[in-house]
């Protein structure tokens, strides 16, 4: 009898249904309406996405007092993903970016559809919305460059 060790493919698969709570719920409702919402926090900065609790004062965020930010913004950081993985926004190499939308003081993490050598920190990008937003983070399909004037 062989002493060779056996191996087999194994998948772990589950789908959680998660309650969003009022703040994340309001943010996702905004996405479904093709709007991006944030909150003006105790530092006077607009935080996108809005956290449930203020990052400095820890006061609970008022979900009814969210503010809308722009649909365009600036890349504050980016990286290249050479090996796309299952579930990611693209199935070919692509960029990730932190984008500070106009009116926001923080970066939103998402994919950026642009060739690698065209990407620069500080470049202007805009949201490309999904065809049928449903109240999920992928209502933003990705960011794309804003053409220079």
């Amino acid at each position, binding site marked *: *009898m062989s*002493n*060779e060790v056996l191996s087999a493919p194994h998948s772990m698969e589950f789908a959680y249904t*998660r309650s969003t709570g009022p703040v994340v*719920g309001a943010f996702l409702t905004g996405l479904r309406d093709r709007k991006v919402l944030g909150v003006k926090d105790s530092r006077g900065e607009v935080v996108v996405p809005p956290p449930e609790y203020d990052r400095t004062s820890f006061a609970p965020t008022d979900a009814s007092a969210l503010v809308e930010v722009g649909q365009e913004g600036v890349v504050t950081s980016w990286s290249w993903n050479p090996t796309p993985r*299952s579930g990611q926004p693209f199935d070919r190499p692509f960029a990730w970016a932190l984008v500070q939308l106009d009116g926001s003081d923080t970066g939103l993490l998402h994919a950026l559809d642009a060739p690698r050598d065209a990407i620069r920190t500080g470049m202007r990008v805009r949201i490309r919305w999904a065809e049928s937003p449903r109240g999920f983070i992928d209502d933003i399909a990705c960011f794309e460059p804003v053409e220079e004037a």
Partner: protein
Amino acid sequence: MSTEPVTAVPVSEIVTPIRLDYRYTPGEASSRFLRGMKEGRILGRRCPSCLKVILPPRGCCSMCGELLGEEVEVKDSGTLVTFAVVNVNFANRTIDLPYVTGEVLFDGADMTTMVLLSGVPLDEVRMGMRVKAVWLPEEQWDYTLANIDHVEPIDEPDADYESFKELL
């Protein structure tokens, strides 16, 4: 592009599917055991410290914290140490209710194995009953304990309670 905002129910729930894929190896000891099952053999391993025959072997004696030693082939007849009559199905089970699961001490092993019991009226099932494995047809054998489909009673006197009470 702008569409009228949908006056709909605010989002309060999302479904987040998770899937991770692995190449799993059960390890050296378990691989030997599973290869044995593919050949219709039940292979336990002896702990060098407490000398018990561990079944199924996964590398280590869980009581002593020692790597397992010699391989010991165990018979496919044994003693029903304890059992449960199951009246409620759970997800994905397709066995007719009620059914009996039991812990069987196969002859030669020092640990019990959970199996299905068949071929005996419910009111005759008892601790100490002598049973034997009923295997799937050989052409269906794979690297799995499930090659043993279930156990059935055999015509032998019940085992004495003293002989298995330590395993309860």
